[in-house]
């Protein structure tokens, strides 16, 4: 079981309020991702749940029981740190065994769980090595192994992949998702990378300045961002935001158009423009098109085979039913 409820949780460091009162419920077995720009309080929120920081006000409940004052070890949560926080002088085996040793679990049970975790995480050959002799990805897996063997009510991850290179990051993303499906345990995952959030989450919590901007499934956030911040943060490349005449024409202060919802033509369309930088990904190409009379270029997704050279003239047309409208306060107009 691992249902976590935050009830008007507030956190201030001295005078500085990092997290204004905040409510959130994380259901049992859910994969929840906290996402937001650096310094928005994601780690702080996670550490509050873990018990590594004291809440300034409010209540944290785990499975319905007040855990606000419960010390970290007693909350039944396991955490994977960004730096992995492995114990450098202990072998991988001892690292993984450490929480069980502290809990006084019998030796043969410890061994059974270590073998199982090592097998699941491809660490069997490395059990007698020190963390210093492992690659980044392997260290990451040791940290996860150390979390798994405790059989926690929930896993907490704080930017676990940010120290890995792109290829490993993709691999580990799949492994963690796979792990979640297999264990069916609540996971709370902190990242500043919206791609990780979109690909892994059951539920995304978008944070800015300690405030929850929106909570929802990845597709809900993609289809109906509640405000401009979420609109700009979710989706890659970023949504094009237009103000002024184009927005006024549609009865809004700002309109947002995703690069994948603009069609391009060499002959006719709504806006005329010239091609700027082209980013080729192979399957797709992202063109930055400078529209006539506009300052910012508009990003457009086109097929990878579409050929356009720098300076070519093109016409763009947006899919009207996919345009997001926002009012002067940045809130979505339904």
């Amino acid at each position, binding site marked *: 079981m691992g249902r976590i409820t935050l009830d008007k949780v507030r956190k201030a460091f001295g005078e500085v309020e990092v997290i204004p009162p905040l409510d959130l419920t994380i259901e049992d077995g859910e994969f929840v991702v906290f996402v937001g720009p650096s310094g928005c309080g994601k780690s702080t929120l996670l550490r509050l749940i873990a018990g*590594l920081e004291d809440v300034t006000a409010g209540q944290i409940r785990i499975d319905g029981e007040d855990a606000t004052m419960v010390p970290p070890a007693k909350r039944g949560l396991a*955490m994977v740190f960004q730096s992995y*926080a492995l114990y450098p002088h202990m072998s991988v085996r001892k690292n993984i065994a450490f*929480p069980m040793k502290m809990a006084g679990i019998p030796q043969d049970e410890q061994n059974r769980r270590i073998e199982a975790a090592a097998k699941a995480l491809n660490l069997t050959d490395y059990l007698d090595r020190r963390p210093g002799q492992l690659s980044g990805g392997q260290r990451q897996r040791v940290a996860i192994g150390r979390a798994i063997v405790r059989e926690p009510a929930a896993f907490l991850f704080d930017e676990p992949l940010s120290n890995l290179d792109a290829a490993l990051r993709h691999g580990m993303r799949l492994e963690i998702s796979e792990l979640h499906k297999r264990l069916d345990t609540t996971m709370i995952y902190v990242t500043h990378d919206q791609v990780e959030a979109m690909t892994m989450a059951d539920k995304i919590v978008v944070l800015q300045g300690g405030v929850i901007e929106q909570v929802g499934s990845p597709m809900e956030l993609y289809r109906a961002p509640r405000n401009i911040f979420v609109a700009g943060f979710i989706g890659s490349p970023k949504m094009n935001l237009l103000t002024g005449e184009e927005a006024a024409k549609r009865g809004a202060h700002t309109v947002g158009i995703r690069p994948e919802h603009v069609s391009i033509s060499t002959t006719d369309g709504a806006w005329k423009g010239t091609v700027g930088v082209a980013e080729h990904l192979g399957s797709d190409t992202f063109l930055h098109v400078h529209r006539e009379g506009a300052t910012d270029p508009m990003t457009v997704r086109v097929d990878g085979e579409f050929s356009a050279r720098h300076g070519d003239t093109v016409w763009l047309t947006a899919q009207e039913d996919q345009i997001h409208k926002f009012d002067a306060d940045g809130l979505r107009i339904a």
Partner: protein
Amino acid sequence: MATQHSRSAARFMMAPAVFLLLVWMLVPLSMTLWFSFRRFLPLRGGDQGFVWFENYSRFISSSAFWPSVQTTLIIVGGILLISVVFGILLALLLDQPMWGQGVVRILVIAPFFVMPTVSALVWKNMFMDPTNGLFAHLWRAFGADPVVWLSDAPLFSIILIVSWQWLPFATLILLTAIQSLDSEQLEAAEMDGAGHLSRFGYIILPHMSRAITIVILIQTIFLLSIFAEIFVTTGGAFGSRTLTYLIYQRVLESQNVGLGSAGGVYAIILANIVALFLMRIVGKNLDA
């Protein structure tokens, strides 16, 4: 130092320093060896030629030799024990956030700046004096008879004085070691269910092992030759005569340079045995 050229340039640049160090070390060493083989009594006939190993056999067969080795080892061991144990405790304490941290840290380091002679004299006269010392007053305040520290517990007194001087050094090095510990490791251990003692035993202490090794090795080098503290307190009396002090007595009080030099060579051998022993026990902490 990647290329052939930069390697030879480096060698060339280092040569003067290496040469100077060699001379610095070799000249006194060879002079000690030279004198140790000769009968040399400055006030009684001067240099009287080779006697080969007579000085060595006389020095080692003297009744004062083995007790002095024992005293040396007890003093060094005692000081190491006190400064490492209390150094760790003080470092843990100073690592806690507190008001006036900077001032407190400087105060803790202060004893290290006091000259050995001065600190020993201060201890001897202000604290340990059986009539006027602070300890004597304290003892009397509780109705006890004052302890005559330097004659009743000479080794303990010297260990106390020298530990007081070296504690700051140990504390400082151990404090930097504690501060270099990644706080996420401690937090991970906390989440893993480790209490304060377990965190200290499993995380902090192993992390400090290298610093502790350094403290032990460096202090041993200096402590094997402590002299001033003994000179101004007990003057080598009451069984507080270390090997160094014995050599001093042979050379200056007995005016026998040859015998003292032989003792010097024994001191070198003792230092090497101690070093070998220490490297066996704690040296592995320096690898990796």
